[in-house]
């Protein structure tokens, strides 16, 4: 029953068309349309998944284009990876759409929001299904477009508009790499289909370059270092958008692309190593920045970057299973975390965590689901996060990369630390400012609950045998991270944030908690992380972000110079010719003096010259 897979992206597109055309009249009904469309896709995806389990496969649909004799067909790939991702995207997408009915309730462009959401759903599903690079590239750009439209949804705010453009251009830079990769692939290997990427040759120099270029596209889309600068700014968009696009699905597309073309990467270790190290750097850097940030959504954004870094790291070392498994579980709990953050913001109307506090009492469901999500991401067994993270760590260790394993461990530690820093600051303790927080309406809390359930049980989808050593390591990470956070924020919560900012309060802290283990621990471990974090944050802002802005600024200058060049030199040359002719016509005009004898003189001078030429010529 796999034959209907290609209909999956069709329904969201239809919903998009309806919403765009009749959006104004539909008003609230547009939400119903897009939700039904995504549920139908969910159903078909489930059927396809079932069909796949019974042995269905990918099939071709039709001829799209022919490049000089080499036909390019539009086909559908149905395998473990794509079915899993289909289920994830449809489930998370539907839940988020239900959630955003509540969240976007009083927005005047309600129907347009849902139109964009279903357009995104369609493109994402199309991306997952496409079986060749050109199809993938088309939907890839479609997804990039939707992220642009949704980020700059509240375009009245200039920051949102700027963020949208920045997102689109940065991903576009990555896509150009992908495009060049596709071109190179087409001419060296004469094929664009994923299925025959595996057997193209081992460690061939050109194919390594192609793999790197394709990875460059993934870096752009999944916000890996150095093209990650757009994701934090993308938080300007509405929170469901951040949840759907910048947590669960779109950013995962990069990882999905690497997974999809894994046959190529495996055969060329040169490229694979790059993937691993980029992943590692991104994971560590993002995690450190997250620990310092005070904006609830930006913390989650950096955490997403960090988790994606981890996945890339896993894939980079050959951990295909762990990477893809974490991709799935991460989608669930990260979506949950964002939605909780969304309902918190919806309630208190601010994003700065140090203005919140003690919200658990007032927002029961949001609070608890928030905690479940944090537990999952931190890797507390038996939740899903533990299983996939554990799988990844064991694969990294098994592939024999001790240094990368250490980085992964530190990152997980930091992840646990900043997640629970968030939890303690927002949910526990005394409210820092007078906030009349109230629980979000049912339409928002139900999806939270469902997602919480998925976060908990997603881990059991894949039978994973547990090694005890790894169990120990995970336990160490969990306890270390949460404990430190507990120590810092629950006990001396006045101390740590203050000391970070000013030195002298350091003494006060020593007195408060009296046992020196913390100080040694802090000096040995936290202080370097802090300085590293602060350095990373400033580095990121000034250099990388600056670099991107710098290129924009430079190209603006280049544009202005060339426009000046065009106006004065090229155009000038043409006008100069015109002026010269005008000038010599003015000069020669003076020849016509009006005196008859001048005329006769000139005439006979001409005659004399002519005869002279003839005489000289004659002899």
């Amino acid at each position, binding site marked *: 029953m796999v034959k209907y897979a290609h209909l999956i992206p069709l329904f969201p597109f239809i919903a998009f068309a309806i919403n765009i055309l009749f959006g104004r009249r539909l008003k609230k009904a547009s939400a119903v349309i897009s939700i039904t469309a995504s549920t139908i896709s969910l159903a078909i995806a489930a059927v396809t998944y079932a069909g796949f389990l019974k042995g269905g496969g990918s099939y071709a649909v039709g001829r799209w284009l022919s490049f000089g004799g080499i036909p390019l067909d539009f086909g559908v790939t149905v395998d473990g990876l794509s079915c899993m991702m289909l289920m994830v995207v449809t489930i998370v997408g539907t839940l988020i759409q239900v959630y955003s009915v509540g969240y976007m309730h009083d927005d005047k462009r309600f129907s347009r929001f849902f139109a964009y959401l279903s357009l995104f759903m369609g493109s994402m599903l199309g991306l997952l299904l496409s079986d060749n690079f050109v199809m993938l590239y088309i939907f890839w750009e479609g997804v990039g477009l939707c992220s642009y439209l949704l980020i700059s949804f509240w375009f009245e705010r200039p920051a949102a508009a700027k963020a949208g453009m920045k997102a689109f251009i940065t991903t576009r830079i990555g896509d150009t790499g992908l495009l060049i990769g596709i071109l190179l692939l087409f001419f060296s290997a004469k094929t664009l289909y994923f299925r025959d990427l595996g057997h193209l040759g081992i460690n061939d120099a050109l194919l390594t370059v192609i793999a790197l270029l394709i990875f460059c596209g993934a870096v752009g889309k999944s916000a890996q270092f150095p093209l990650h600068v757009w994701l934090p700014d993308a938080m300007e968009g509405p929170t469901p958008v951040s949840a759907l696009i910048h947590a669960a699905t779109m950013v995962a597309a990069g990882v999905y692309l690497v997974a999809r073309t894994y046959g190529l990467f495996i055969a060329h270790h040169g490229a694979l190593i790059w993937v691993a190290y980029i992943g590692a750097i991104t994971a560590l850097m993002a995690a450190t920045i997250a620990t310092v940030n005070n904006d609830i959504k930006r913390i989650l954004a950096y955490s997403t970057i960090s988790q994606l870094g981890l996945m890339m790291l896993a894939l980079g070392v050959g951990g295909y299973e762990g990477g893809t498994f974490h991709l799935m579980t991460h989608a669930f709990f990260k979506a949950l975390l964002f939605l909780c953050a969304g309902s918190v913001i919806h309630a208190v109307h601010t994003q700065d965590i140090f203005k919140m506090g003690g919200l658990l009492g007032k927002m029961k469901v949001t609070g608890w689901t928030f905690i479940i999500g944090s537990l999952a991401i931190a890797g507390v067994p038996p939740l899903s996060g533990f299983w996939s993270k554990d799988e990844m760590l064991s694969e990294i260790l098994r592939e024999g990369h001790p240094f990368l394993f250490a980085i992964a461990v530190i990152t997980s530690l930091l992840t646990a630390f900043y997640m629970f820093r968030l939890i303690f600051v927002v949910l526990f303790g005394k409210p820092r400012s007078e906030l009349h927080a109230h629980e979000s309406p049912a339409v928002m809390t139900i999806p939270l609950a469902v997602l919480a359930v998925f976060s908990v049980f997603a881990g059991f989808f894949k039978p994973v045998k547990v090694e005890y050593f790894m169990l120990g390591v995970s336990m160490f990470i969990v306890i270390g991270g949460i404990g430190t956070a507990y120590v810092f924020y629950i006990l001396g919560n006045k101390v740590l944030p203050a000391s970070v900012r000013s030195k002298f309060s350091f003494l006060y802290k020593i007195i408060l908690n009296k046992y020196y283990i913390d100080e040694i621990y802090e000096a040995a471990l936290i202080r370097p992380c802090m300085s590293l974090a602060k350095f990373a944050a400033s580095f990121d802002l000034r250099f990388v972000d600056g670099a991107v802005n710098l290129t924009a600024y430079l190209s603006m200058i280049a544009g202005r110079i060339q426009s000046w060049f065009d106006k004065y030199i090229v155009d000038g040359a043409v006008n100069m010719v015109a002026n010269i002719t005008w000038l010599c016509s003015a000069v020669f005009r003076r020849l016509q003096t009006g*005196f008859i004898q001048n005329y006769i*003189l000139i005439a*006979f*001078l001409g*005659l*004399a010259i002519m005869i002279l030429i003839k*005489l000289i010529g004659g002899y």
Partner: protein
Amino acid sequence: MNGLIQTLSDILNNYGLRQEFAIRACFYSLAVLACIFGLGVVTLRNIFHCAISLAMTLFCIAGIYLFLNAEFLAAVQVLIYVGAIVTLFLFAIMLTAKIGDRSIRQTNKQVLASLAVSAAILSLFVSIIIGSPWKKAAADDTLRLGIGELGKALMSVYALPFEAISLILLAALVGAIVIGKAGK
């Protein structure tokens, strides 16, 4: 016209000069005179004197025609050119009065340039005249063209140009009257 030359050479003979030398001397004197008077036409300050020197030049040219066995032409030259055209000029000079007095400078600024051009053209023509082989008739001055043949040719072979000339003269006449007469 033989008669006239004959008498002229006889006079010279009386002075012991041979006939041939007499003719040549006579020609060159006329030629030189023509050039001098020509120069006069071109350079004299008073326009009145120019007209007179033009008349004298034309007389000398008529004389030279005699040497070329063109007696009728000499007569026509004297009659029409000197008689009619020069008098016409005199009328014109009188009509446009005040240019007669001597004070006004007669030549304009471009004297040097025009001197150069006319000298150049003169030298070019002279080099051609000397250089090139003119078609020469075998017999010498045996041929005399009487006025009778001239008239017959005019009426038979050159009838069309003759009529065309009449058309030109009529047109010039009508034109001169139209433009010349005062009126509104």
